[in-house]
């Protein structure tokens, strides 16, 4: 009960008054709390291994630049994407420097060119000679409408890793493998039914029709493309049709040579360990992952340039990509740009990235460093870096498009449908499958064009 002199307040109980008071005070406290000023230049990264590798360089930078220290923040992949896009689209706070994966970065290219949240680095890169210093294909992912918005972090060339113990025990000479036809023909004796149930227990290559990166890697290697130089979708290219039909002959039918061995799951790892799959496509970054997660394969594997589609053809392909961009929100572009170069061009980073996670730097001048040419015991003493460097200049170019993910979805949808068609109709030759492949790709092309045509800002 209220004392008499507070009777006018009795329309609320004392408890309600206390709650109200606490609410008002806490609101005031929040409203009046001083906003923590930005400390230096925020740098957002999404990968734990990257963050760990960058820490010594950031510390070194902060010691030498106490007026412009870098504040390195590790942010979960999707959270970084959302925060980055929100910042670019509506002006919420973003970091001065953002390290973005290729699909994430491409989404920032969906609006008009002058609304891309990253600073256009094209002129800087040319003026400072970085275009010559860095592996050329690495720029394509960060190029939208002819302008470059990021400093490349990597090359990500792909090699073929195979079970040398199994291959050599069968007396197969891998030096004779130049094309995919050679690979499947020479290794065919390894496909066996061990338990006598009439089913093959070992396959030659890990890959399946549902595996988007697998399809994209092989399409790019063969000279196929999802987008042309004008960044327009081109799914129905004759080369794409051929690749789709050929891949289907690898997956479908009683003589199929591939099996699904997921790259990021325990079951896929088990299949590699048990020798259910003999060979896999492996980009540089995955070599580090295998060393961590598949120590049982150490000394049993060897690497080979990816078999070509035709004699004299490309012996590598590409999977993944990351860049570092300076955002338009950065108050001091020069400082951010200086740090970006200090970080990505540092020879010690090139060494650390390769030794730590197997990633090859795109900075060509570092490729002669000894770390890249040492024998690697995991790969039976082969020099992993040397093999990657030999293929790096031949990595296929990939035009950046905010619709890259959608285009890949369409490609995979066509491949899955073609796989089903082959099994249903029992058609297992490339020539038999090509008309259906073209029909399915046309459907994907139409859908993709419809989706892209909705964007009124892209080509403004």
């Amino acid at each position: 009960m209220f004392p008499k002199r507070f009777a006018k307040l009795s329309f609320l109980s004392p408890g309600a008054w206390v709650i109200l008071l606490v609410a008002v005070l806490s609101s005031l406290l929040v409203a009046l709390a001083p906003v923590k000023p930005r400390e230096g230049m925020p740098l957002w990264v999404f990968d734990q291994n990257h963050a760990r590798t960058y820490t010594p360089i950031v510390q070194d930078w902060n010691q030498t630049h106490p007026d412009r220290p870098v504040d390195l923040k590790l942010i979960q992949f999707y959270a970084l994407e959302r925060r980055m896009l929100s910042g670019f689209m509506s002006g919420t706070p973003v970091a001065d420097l953002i390290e973005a994966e290729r699909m994430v970065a491409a989404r920032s290219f969906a609006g008009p060119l002058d609304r891309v949240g990253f600073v256009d680095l094209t002129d800087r890169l040319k003026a400072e000679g970085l275009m010559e210093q860095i592996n050329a294909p690495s720029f394509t992912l960060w190029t939208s409408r002819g302008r470059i918005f990021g400093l490349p972090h990597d090359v990500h060339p792909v090699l073929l890793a195979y079970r040398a113990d199994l291959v050599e025990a069968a007396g197969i000479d891998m030096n004779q493998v130049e094309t995919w036809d050679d690979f499947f023909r020479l290794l065919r004796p390894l496909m066996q039914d061990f338990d006598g149930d009439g089913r093959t227990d070992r396959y030659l290559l890990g890959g399946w029709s549902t595996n988007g990166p697998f399809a994209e890697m092989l399409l790019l290697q063969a000279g196929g493309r999802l987008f042309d130089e004008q960044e327009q979708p081109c799914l129905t290219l004759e080369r794409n049709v051929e690749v789709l039909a050929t891949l289907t002959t690898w997956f479908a039918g009683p003589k199929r040579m591939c099996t699904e061995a997921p790259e990021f799951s325990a079951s896929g790892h088990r299949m590699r360990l048990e020798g259910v799959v003999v060979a896999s496509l492996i980009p540089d970054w995955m070599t580090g992952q295998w060393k961590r997660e598949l120590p049982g394969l150490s000394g049993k594997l060897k690497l080979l340039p990816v078999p070509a589609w035709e004699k004299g053809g490309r012996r590598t392909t590409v999977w993944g990509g990351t860049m570092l961009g300076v955002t338009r929100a950065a108050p001091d572009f020069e400082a951010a740009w200086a740090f970006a170069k200090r970080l990505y061009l540092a020879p010690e980073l090139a060494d650390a990235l390769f030794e730590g996670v197997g990633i090859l730097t795109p900075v060509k001048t570092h490729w002669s460093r000894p770390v890249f040419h040492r024998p690697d015991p995991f790969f039976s003493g082969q020099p992993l870096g040397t093999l990657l460097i030999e293929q790096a200049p031949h990595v296929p170019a990939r035009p950046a498009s905010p619709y890259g993910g959608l285009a890949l979805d369409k490609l995979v949808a066509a491949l899955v449908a073609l796989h089903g068609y082959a099994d249903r109709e029992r058609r297992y030759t490339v020539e038999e499958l090509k008309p259906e492949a073209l029909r399915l790709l046309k459907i994907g092309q139409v859908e993709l064009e419809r989706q892209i045509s909705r964007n009124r800002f892209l080509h403004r």
Partner: protein
Amino acid sequence: MRTSRHALPRVSIRAFPAWAPWFFIAPFLAVFCVFTLWPLGRSLVLSFQQTYGPGTTEFVGFDNFEFMLRDPLFWKAARNTALFTCGSIFLQLPLALGLALLLNRSGIRGRAFFRLVFFSPSLVGLVFVGMLFALVFEKRTGLVNYTLHALIASFDPEFAWLQNYVLISLILAALWLYIGLNMVYFLAALQSVSRDLVEAASIDGANAWQRFRHIVLPEILPVAGLVVLMSIIGSFQLFELPWVLLNNTAGPDNRGLTLVMYLYQTGFLTGDLGYASAVGWVIALALAGIALLHRRTMRRRE
């Protein structure tokens, strides 16, 4: 104000100023307006626009809705969602009711234990269930293929459930998750059925089916109606389960694409926020229509 020792003080409504109720609900209202009403209004506006952020926006009238009508992917998502909803209603609910009837019988030993066992899956999250069933349906090493191959030698251990039977796999995963929860609703309803009526019907010679059809079912119908409505709403909101089960995709050839997944893809992966808002409003209106229909049906029955 005088009060007797036994009676609570009588407070007249006139003692409060007219604005007092608003004062009490003000905190909720403020939060509701800022975080629900305002975004709802904005999304309605957005559904008539194309945008790349506030500075780059164009009014497009009904373009987004027209595109939706001609968009095969939207209809594929709608079809998948409808099939999943049918699976929930016509498979999950009858099984949940069957379990509830079974566990409502007094003669069963360990009844409480079985109730807990059936209910326990609903204590875990959708993401967990998605990951679990991704392992269960894996080729070669997954529980389903491994067991079937061990039992039937001719069964192909490489059979791809998540490629060939995406929706069936989804319905089975949801069945495992929700059957126990729906069973609890039905159990609660069954326990309110008059035992006297059931016994009287037995004495009058009604068999089990007649007792269920004419006594139990009418009694539990309001709860069953509520469970059906909740299942429909839940099915229309399906996102996490297929997203995780199909490894952050809609599955091969979008066979696991649901309406909310499509909304997410268009809004957050393709960046078409206006179109995603239009999809969101169509889902909301469809659900509102179903809820109204349900309400009208239940009222008519009452």
